[in-house]
């Protein structure tokens, strides 16, 4: 039997980068193949080539033996390929139905038959057990639901091959499990599934085969039966990786960060943080677990002075910081690793050395009055690049030119190299490769051991569970439970995150 999808010797270069080099992968009907690799390993580029979103320089892609012309998305769809994209390809101001039918609309004469379209969406949603409201506007829906719409869109035309590009990045553990189940059901009905992830647990759970990419090449091919998570990680990174974070017992002292009855609005002026209470003691890591969009971002921004409070207090070592300018909050000893490093963490067009002093460029020793001290800047940058293992050609390189992991290391280096009493780390390892994750985790633990109060906000439950000394579960703008690390069991935390009682 010939394979459903055959990728043979595909090469694709972008200016200055070889994204794919002679990659060959195949998927058979009814098989789940996981494409595993670090960020920038070339996974997305490869599947985009299959779906005609990228034109490979050379090599060929065949579906059911038929050659696919480069860049022919319509042709790929017509041959039964469906794809769930990493960045949702949904129109926010349109309804769920409009989004799903886009590109192949049911007609009545020259007009779109909205009634038929709606019925089709409802039938589709029932068929796969993925619940959606056909009339809701996409912009009003949470990301988990948007993900379901993406999947329904991909499944609409009885696909033979389903490609999923990091589908679980924004899902709760329960939603992830549901999605993995959907994938298994599809495979059982004969659909070939090619899915991209960098989460080893998911690979072990569903994949029949694993293809590991590293630096644009196939680093190896294996199956969950033949290896374990450590083995996969090693294949991915090319060296030994310690997945389990090694840390000593926390020795918490006095409460350093206190949040009392804090209420904050989100951008749309809806209450996002609702009378929240939390304290973080010096020398401990408190992990805030929660489905994204439950007020975590607003909480972090309020603590850091980036968002005005409605009511309540934020105290750092007993001193009220809730009405201070972000720069002032920082000078109180509050370090912030922001969720969106491109927007709030770095100035992409500035050099690394400038980025490393973004929040203290005006202070001794980096400036004397109006004059910057270039020697001190360079000395600082050289030392931090070395210490934090930032891989860059030079300290004068612009931050925008670095890979995601190295950008994040610049932010971490800047924030943790200073004397800090409080560290606010929001999604510190989002979009960062396994090797860098390990490094950043160790840095956070080092900060804790040096006596800082660390507040870790993460959508990755595994990250929270492996780092935090106490786990605060956030749902609907409130802390619904605080658990000691030893009591924080995956399933329990997941249920609390979903707003269910334990």
């Amino acid at each position, binding site marked *: 039997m010939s394979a459903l999808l055959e990728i043979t010797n595909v090469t694709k270069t*972008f200016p200055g980068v070889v994204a794919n080099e002679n990659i060959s992968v195949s998927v058979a009907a009814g098989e789940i193949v996981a494409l595993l690799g670090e960020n920038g390993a070339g996974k997305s*580029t490869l599947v985009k080539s299959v779906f005609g979103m*990228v034109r490979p320089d050379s090599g060929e892609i065949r579906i059911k033996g038929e050659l696919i012309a480069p860049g022919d998305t319509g042709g790929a*769809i017509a041959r039964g390929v469906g794809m769930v*994209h990493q960045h949702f*390809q*949904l129109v926010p101001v349109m309804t769920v139905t409009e989004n799903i039918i886009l590109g192949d609309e049911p007609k009545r004469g020259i*007009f*779109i038959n909205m009634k038929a379209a709606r019925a089709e969406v409802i039938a589709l949603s029932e068929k796969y057990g993925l619940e959606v409201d056909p009339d809701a506007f996409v912009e009003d829906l949470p990301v988990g639901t948007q993900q379901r719409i993406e999947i329904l869109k991909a499944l609409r035309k009885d696909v033979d091959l389903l490609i999923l590009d990091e589908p679980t990045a924004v899902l709760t553990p329960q939603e992830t499990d549901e999605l993995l189940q959907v994938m298994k059901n599809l495979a059982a009905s004969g659909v070939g599934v090619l899915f991209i992830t960098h989460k080893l647990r998911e690979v072990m759970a569903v994949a029949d085969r694993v293809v590991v990419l590293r630096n644009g090449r196939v680093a190896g091919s294996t199956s969950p039966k033949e290896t374990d998570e450590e083995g996969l990680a090693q294949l991915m990174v090319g060296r030994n990786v310690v997945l389990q974070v090694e840390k000593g017992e926390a020795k918490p002292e006095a409460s350093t960060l206190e949040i009392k009855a804090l209420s904050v609005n989100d951008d749309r002026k809806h209450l996002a943080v609702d009378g929240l209470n939390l304290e973080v003691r010096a020398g401990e890591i408190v992990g805030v677990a929660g489905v994204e969009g439950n007020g975590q971002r607003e909480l972090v921004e309020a603590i850091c002075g980036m968002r005005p409070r409605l009511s309540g207090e934020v105290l750092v070592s007993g001193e009220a910081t809730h009405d201070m300018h972000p720069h002032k909050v920082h000078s109180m000893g509050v370090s912030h690793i922001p969720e969106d490093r491109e927007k709030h963490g770095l100035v992409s067009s500035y050099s690394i050395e400038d980025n490393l002093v973004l929040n203290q460029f005006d202070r001794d020793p980096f400036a004397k009055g109006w004059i910057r001290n270039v020697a001190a800047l360079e000395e600082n940058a050289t030392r931090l690049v070395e210490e934090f293992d930032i891989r860059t050609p030079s300290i004068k390189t612009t931050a925008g030119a670095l890979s995601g992991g190295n950008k994040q290391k610049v932010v971490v280096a800047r924030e943790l190299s200073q004397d800090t009493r409080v560290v606010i780390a929001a999604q510190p390892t989002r979009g960062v490769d396994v090797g860098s994750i390990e490094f950043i985790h160790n840095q956070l633990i080092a900060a804790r051991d040096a006596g800082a109060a660390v507040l870790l906000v993460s959508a990755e439950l595994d990250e929270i569970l492996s780092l935090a000394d106490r786990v605060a579960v956030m749902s609907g703008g409130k802390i619904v439970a605080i658990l000691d690390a030893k009591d924080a069991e995956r399933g329990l935390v997941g249920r609390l995150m979903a707003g269910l009682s334990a």
Partner: protein
Amino acid sequence: MKKLLSFKWLLTLLLVVITGYFYSKDGVITSSVVSTALIFGLPLALAAMVGIMCERTGIVNIGIEGTLLFSAFVGFFTASATDSDFYGVVAAVIAGTASGVLLAFMSISWKMDQIIAGTIINILATGLTSFLYKQGHTAPTTSEIDIPWLSKIPFFGQVLFMHGPIVYIGLVLIFVLYVALFHTSWGLRSRAVGEHPGSADTAGVSVFKLRYLNVSIAGAVGGLAGAYLSLELVGSWDRGFTAGKGFTALALMIFGRWNPMGALAAAMFFGLTQAVTNQLMFSQIVKIPDQFVNMLPYILTIVVLAISAGKVRPPAAEGQQYEKEQA
């Protein structure tokens, strides 16, 4: 949003009541004023359609002014040379389409900044027409067609059914565009491309082709508006005689929230204001210097933009290049 909606209905009601009152007082003048409102408003409405078609697919078109000027010029001098109003209109539409294709070429194929591409069209149109202009030509203009039966209806007959051909074509076009934009595949895809091109691309819709198509058709509509100006409304062509109508149309497009019906209503309101002012001046009821009257459209444009500022949401992908391949 609700507030603006009720404001809209209130204004409509007010206009109907006022019109009714004046019609009972003096039917002839009232009918003529409202009819003039349509005549003044139509080119603005058509020009706003050009903007809507482009921006709904994500291409900003600030070259409408140039399209109007150029197509009006080509239309007028073709009509003059061939002694045929029909050939004049056809030539104007072709000229408008050409300006649309040029905009598409610059902003889609060359990935030029769309504001600059539009500005180039404006400068090119002003320069070319001024250079080629010869005084003293006349051309046949389109003649009024009274629709049988319908034109006999009191008030509405004169307001709606006693016009030149381009008024009828234009009005039908606006309604067709409205229906097409919200009830056909073409409309759904166009709006998707203007909001989030990736969503259309991943659904197998070619962003490139659809943008080209829409910007070119929009150019043709602009050509029709130009023909209307030189061959139906004014009957002549003069340097810079479009007097910023292309820019006013952009304001109306925004005020009408990128919706053909909204823009049509806004354009008619504009036309009415001018018609009423003209009438007041003509019958010597008010005596204001001409200069102030001529300022009116521009002042209204500023007011309109100030009212709609911050309350409307443009198509999200407007003005952005779509790059299919990203690492």
